[in-house]
């Protein structure tokens, strides 16, 4: 099927999407930075000079070494070491991996929930709509971060520290996904409300298709572009939420750090002058979130979806 792929590639190259991407320097730069960070995170086990999960490689004598370029630096640790003597570059690579996994995982979960509830609310209307959107309103008025903190706190208190640490990745994906589903559900619902008045939906009904088929096969594809835009921004939000939870001690344990827990563990040493343990992971976090947000802004301009503004 080479002809098909070629023509698809050609179609992509002639699309408005590609055209506007080529002309937007900020978008290109953001994409390249994001791509390199994702690749670095995916291939962390190959790229990292040390394995931060392997206790045998850690020497406590190497703790709190500064990055190269400062007095007392060791060239074996280009970004210095943390308080346990782990190579900071390696922990950051692995930490970015954890943060990205949670970010993408949480957005996949909230997209699943948001699309399902948004479609149901928008297409069925009536009581279902009223109840689902009321729940979404209440949850949003509490701010997603607050909901995540409370759910995280309850989970941590009920599972205990050790247990929570072991399943922290899944817990965080679950917590953030559940806390943020209303954002996507509202967007989907707004698009569905606009779509369901259109003729093709009537046509599908006349042809006797069932409700689920109309919802998922006919309406859903037409609501994808706003979902795409909001999901991009939500990845950035999920990464920030994860970092905030980890910083509060409700997230990843220090043995398997994310960027947030690296910042937290480094913060305890900032008064003793070891600023790099907390500020370098912090910088990585900000750059990661910033490029995703910039790409989200660009996508919004290109796709120009009818974003639901509460």
């Amino acid at each position, binding site marked *: 099927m080479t002809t098909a792929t070629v023509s698809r590639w050609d179609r992509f190259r002639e699309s408005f999407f590609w055209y506007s991407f080529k002309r937007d320097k900020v978008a290109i730069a953001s994409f390249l930075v994001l791509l390199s960070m994702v690749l670095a995170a995916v291939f962390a086990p190959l790229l990292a000079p040390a394995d931060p999960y392997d206790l045998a490689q850690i020497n406590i004598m190497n703790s709190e070494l500064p990055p190269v370029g400062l007095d007392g630096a060791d060239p074996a640790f280009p970004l210095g070491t943390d308080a346990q003597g782990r190579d900071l570059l390696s922990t950051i690579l692995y930490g970015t991996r954890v943060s990205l996994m949670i970010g993408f995982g949480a957005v996949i979960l909230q997209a699943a929930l948001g699309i399902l509830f948004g479609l149901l609310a928008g297409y069925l209307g009536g009581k279902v709509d009223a109840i689902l959107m009321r729940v979404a309103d209440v949850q949003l008025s509490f701010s997603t971060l607050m909901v995540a903190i409370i759910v995280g706190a309850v989970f941590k208190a009920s599972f205990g520290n050790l247990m929570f640490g072991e399943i922290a990745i899944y817990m965080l994906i679950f917590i953030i996904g559940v806390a943020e589903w209303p954002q996507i559900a509202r967007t989907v619902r707004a698009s569905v409300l606009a779509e369901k008045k259109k003729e093709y939906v009537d046509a599908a009904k006349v042809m006797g298709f069932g409700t689920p088929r109309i919802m998922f096969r006919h309406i859903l594809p037409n609501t994808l572009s706003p979902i795409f835009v909001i999901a991009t921004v939500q990845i950035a939000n999920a990464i920030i939420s994860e970092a905030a939870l980890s910083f509060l001690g409700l997230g990843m344990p220090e043995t398997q750090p994310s960027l947030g827990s690296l910042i937290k563990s480094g913060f305890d040493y*900032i008064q003793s002058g070891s600023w790099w343990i907390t500020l370098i992971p912090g910088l990585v976090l900000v750059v990661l979130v*910033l490029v995703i947000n910039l790409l989200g802004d660009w996508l919004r301009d290109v796709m120009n979806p009818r974003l639901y503004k509460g």
Partner: protein
Amino acid sequence: MLAFLVQRVSQALLVMFVISVIAFAIQDGLGDPLQEMVGMSVSSEEREAIREELGLNDSFVVQYLRFAGSAIQGDLGNSYFYSKPALEVIAEHLPATLELVIGASLIIIVLSVPIGVYAAIRPQAWLSKFFMGVSTVGISIPVFLTAIVLIQLFSIGVTVNWFPADTGWGQWLNEFFTTEGGLPSYGRGDDLVHLFGTWESGLFTGEGLAHLVLPCVSLASIMLPLFIRLIRAEMMEVLQSDYIRYARAKGLGAGRINFLHALKNTMLPVITVGGVQLGIMVAYTILTETVFQWPGLGLMFLEAITRSDIPLIVAYLMVVGLIFVVTNTLVDLIYGLVNPTVKLTGKKA
């Protein structure tokens, strides 16, 4: 209007009911009050007897009703750690958080209105673009990271010697980037003034104010970009409207149009969104207070989690839930009062 009022208030009561059920379920699921009350030596028969006597064997509904009944009377149980009523503990920590929120709100108001208005009036000016760029970056920086950077810069201090010190410009640049530090980054200080009740205020002494600076700036930094964007967007929309065009055609001065006619209509949605955002700030106080060891509600809540102090966790949830519900309902009511055409269903986070 009456129907709207009744609808909103009953909705608020419903939400509060749901919050109390969740809070009670947490208490019911996590805590075993018996473990806190009796030692190891008590036999299982005696435990069962105490259980029966305390009503712990009653059904969930009966126990919830008892919980709700005493909650309405202001009794949310005793904190395990502080060994006094949970609400009293909250009352002691509330003023610190309130002062933090007041300080941050002042910073937000003073900065966001002029910047937002300027960016709307002159969207093409480089200064506007600069502010909008800074606010995009600002949204991407988590509040605890801002706080840490502020501590490094203004509490610990940074000495810069990147530039050659023997040249005049190098020396000047080194000095320009070097910060003194010295601002307190821990707690509220010792110099607090007793106002009334449990309110120990840091607003009236130099030391108290110095302790407020970094936490307030950090907390403000997360909301400021949102408000600048909001004010700019609303103002730009208002500036497009017919009555502004008419005022221009009439030959009114730009200052009068912008600040008297346009700003008035800009501020209405901003104030309502602002009201909701102030409630949302509670979530961010948890992060800010953790960084600065600020003895407010947020830090108390986190400590309660690490200590498994369940009555205090539950009390915090109820109080914060009440704050959210009351601010949201008030904002909705005010908005409905001022702008009857719009039925506000809720605001985005």
